[in-house]
C-alpha cells in the first residue's frame, strides 16, 4: 500500500479536480514555446538525414553499409536492440507497475507509453531495412502463397522476433489509445475551440464517463494489463534468442534472456527519466511529476544497475569457468582488454558504476544529477549492444576471417534519423495529447489522505 505519511502525496499543491484538467490541458491549448519549434526543426533535419540514408539503402542496397562477411550485423542490429530496449518503458511502467499496484505510475505512464509506441516504430525500421529488399518484406507474413505454399520457419527466433515486435507495437498502441478515451472526452467537454471539440470528440468515440463505461474500461485495462505483462518478459527474451541460438562465442549463453530483459527495462526507465526531467521543467508540471516520482525511478535504476553489474561479472566469470578457449578469447582478449576494451569498460562504467551514485539522496534530488546519469545509462546500453554484436563477430574462430568494422555515413544517417523521428513523435505527443492521464491522476488525488480513510 502507498503510505502517504512516508512517501508524500502523489499530487502536490492541493489541486482540485478542475485544476488537474486545466493544468494538464494547458500545453494543448497554449501556443508552444520557442524551444518547441527549435527542437522540432533540429529533429526534423535529423529525420530528413535519416530519410536520405534510407533512400540510399533502398536504392543502392546494403552494400552502402559497412558490413562484411564476418561482421554481418552492425549498427542496424545494435540500434534495433537499443530502440526496442527503450520501448520497454511503456510496458514496464504501465503494465508491470499496474499489476504491482504501484499508484505512483499514474502521472508518468501516458508519456512512457507514447515513448514506447514511437521507439518500437523506430526499432521496426531496422530489421525491415536489413532484409535488403524492403519491398519483399511481406514475404515474412505466414499467409497461403503461390510459392509452394512455402511457410516461414516457425522455429526461427528471427521470425519470433517479427511476431513479437509487430504484436508489441499493436498491443502498446491499443493500450495507450484506450487509456486516452476519457481524457479526450475531457478535452472535448472543456475546450472552447470548435475545431478541438470536433477533433477530440471524434477520437473520444462517444465517451461519457457513465458507470456502464467505467466498469468495462476497468475490466479491459485489467485484462490487457494482465496478459500484456507477459510481454515485458517475452519481447526482449525473443530478441536475445536471436543471439543466443548462434554458436558465436559471447552469444551462446543461457544468461541472455534475463540479461536482455533487465537491460531493456533499465534503458526504458532511463529514457523515461531523461524525458520526464526535461518535461516537468519546461511544462512546469512539478506538482504532478514530483520529486518523489523521480526518486522512485532512481531507486529502481540503482537496483537494476546492480543486476546489470552482476550479469556482466557472471558473463566474464563463465567465460573463464567454462574452460572454453574461444569464450576466454572473446571476453579476455577482445572485450576486457584489446581492440574493443573502450566499449566494454564504457558499458561497465555507465551501466553498473555511475548509477550507483543514486545511493546519495542529494543526487536523486538534483535535476542535473538525474539527467546526466540517465543519459549515461542510455549511452552505456548502446555500448552494451555494440559489445555484444560487433566484438563477437569481428574476431571469431578463424583468425583469417578477422576484420574490423566501422559504420558508414549511411548507417550513421539511419541512426540519427531514428533519433530525429523519435523526438518529432514525442514533441507531437506533448503538443496534441494530454501527457498525463487526467482521469487516473484524479483517481489517485486523495490516495492515503484523510479524505480517503
Amino acid at each position, binding site marked *: 500500500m502507498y503510505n502517504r505519511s512516508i512517501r508524500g502525496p502523489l499530487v502536490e499543491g492541493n489541486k*482540485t*479536480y*478542475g485544476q488537474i*484538467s486545466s493544468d494538464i490541458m494547458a500545453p494543448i491549448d497554449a501556443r508552444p514555446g520557442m524551444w518547441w519549434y527549435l527542437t522540432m526543426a533540429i529533429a526534423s533535419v535529423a529525420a530528413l538525414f535519416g530519410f536520405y540514408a534510407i533512400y540510399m539503402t533502398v536504392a543502392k542496397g546494403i552494400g552502402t553499409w559497412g558490413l562484411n562477411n564476418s561482421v554481418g550485423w552492425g549498427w542496424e542490429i545494435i540500434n534495433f536492440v537499443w530502440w526496442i530496449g527503450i520501448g520497454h518503458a511503456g510496458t514496464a511502467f504501465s503494465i508491470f507497475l499496474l499489476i504491482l499496484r504501484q499508484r505512483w505510475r499514474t502521472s508518468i505512464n501516458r508519456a512512457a507509453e507514447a515513448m514506447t509506441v514511437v521507439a518500437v516504430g523506430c526499432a521496426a525500421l531496422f530489421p525491415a531495412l536489413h532484409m535488403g529488399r524492403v519491398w519483399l518484406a511481406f514475404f515474412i507474413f*505466414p499467409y497461403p502463397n503461390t510459392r509452394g*505454399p*512455402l*511457410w516461414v*520457419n*516457425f*522455429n526461427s527466433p528471427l*521470425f*519470433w522476433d517479427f*511476431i*513479437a515486435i509487430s*504484436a508489441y507495437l*499493436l*498491443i502498446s498502441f491499443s*493500450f495507450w489509445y*484506450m487509456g486516452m*478515451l*476519457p481524457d479526450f*472526452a*475531457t478535452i*472535448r*467537454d*472543456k475546450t472552447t475551440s470548435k475545431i478541438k471539440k470536433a477533433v477530440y470528440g*471524434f*477520437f473520444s*468515440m*462517444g*465517451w*461519457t*464517463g*457513465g*458507470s*456502464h*463505461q*467505467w*466498469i*468495462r*474500461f*476497468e*475490466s*479491459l485495462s*485489467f*485484462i*490487457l494489463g494482465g*496478459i*500484456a505483462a507477459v*510481454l515485458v518478459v*517475452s519481447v526482449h527474451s*525473443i530478441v536475445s534468442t536471436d543471439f543466443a541460438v548462434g554458436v558465436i562465442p559471447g552469444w551462446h549463453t543461457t544468461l541472455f534472456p534475463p540479461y536482455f530483459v533487465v537491460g531493456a527495462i533499465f534503458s526504458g526507465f532511463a529514457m523515461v527519466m531523461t524525458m520526464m526531467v526535461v518535461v516537468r521543467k519546461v511544462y512546469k508540471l512539478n506538482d504532478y511529476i514530483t520529486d518523489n516520482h523521480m526518486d522512485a525511478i532512481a531507486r529502481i535504476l540503482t537496483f537494476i544497475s546492480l543486476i546489470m553489474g552482476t550479469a556482466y561479472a557472471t558473463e566474464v566469470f563463465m567465460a573463464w569457468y567454462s574452460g572454453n578457449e574461444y569464450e576466454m578469447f572473446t571476453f579476455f582478449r577482445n572485450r576486457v582488454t584489446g581492440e574493443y576494451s573502450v566499449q566494454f569498460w564504457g558499458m561497465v562504467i555507465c551501466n553498473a558504476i555511475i548509477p550507483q551514485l543514486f545511493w546519495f539522496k542529494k543526487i536523486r534530488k538534483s535535476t542535473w544529477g538525474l539527467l546526466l546519469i540517465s543519459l549515461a545509462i542510455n549511452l552505456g546500453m548502446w555500448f552494451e549492444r555494440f559489445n555484444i554484436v560487433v566484438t563477437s563477430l569481428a574476431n571469431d574462430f578463424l583468425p583469417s576471417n578477422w576484420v574490423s568494422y566501422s559504420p558508414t555515413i549511411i548507417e550513421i544517417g539511419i541512426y540519427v534519423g531514428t533519433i530525429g523521428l523519435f523526438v518529432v513523435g514525442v514533441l507531437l505527443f506533448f503538443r496534441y495529447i494530454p501527457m498525463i492521464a*487526467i*482521469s*487516473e491522476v*484524479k*483517481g489517485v488525488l*486523495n490516495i492515503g489522505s484523510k*479524505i480517503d480513510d
Partner: protein
Amino acid sequence: MSTKYKIGVFDEEKTLVASIKSLQERNLAIFDVFTPYPIHEVLHLLKRKSKLPTAGLIYGITGALSVLAFLYYTSVLDWPIDYGGKPFNSFPSFIVITIVLTILIVTITSLFTFSVRARLFPGQEAVIFDDRATDDKFIIVIDAELLGGDAANEAGRIMSESGAVEILEKDLAEKK
C-alpha cells in the same frame, strides 16, 4: 411533455456515494452515474458487472488452440521441412509464437468487445447530460419519466439533502 431527466450534480466522491445510498434505500431507480474517474464504490453500489474477463478467457483459449493448430497444419501437414532431422511437430519452439499471438488475439478481440459493449465507436456522438462530468463534477441521473413526477421530485429532494450542489432538469429527447 414533462422533463425527462433529473440530474444531481455533486462536488465530491463522498457526497455522491452517500446520495446513491439514500436513493437506493428508498428504492428510487438511478438511471446512471457519471464520474470523471472510476469509483469502485459507485460501480459496486450500482451492481455494474462486466463479463469482459470471461470473454477474454474464452478468446485466449480459442486463440491459443487456433495458433497451435495453424502451426501444426503448416509445419506437419501442409509442407513439412526437415531442419537437420528435428521433428516436424517441434512443440517447444511453437510455444513462443503461441504465447505472443494469443496475447495479440486477446487484446484485439477484447478491444472490439469493449467497443461494442461500452458503445464506443469512432465518430460516435456522446450523450452528454452535463459536460462537467468529465472534468470535476460527479453526476447522478434519474429517469423522471420512468419514475413519475412525484418520485422524481422526491429523488431531487434526497439528492440536494445529501449534498448535491445543483439539481438540474433536462430533456435530452431531441438529442438522441
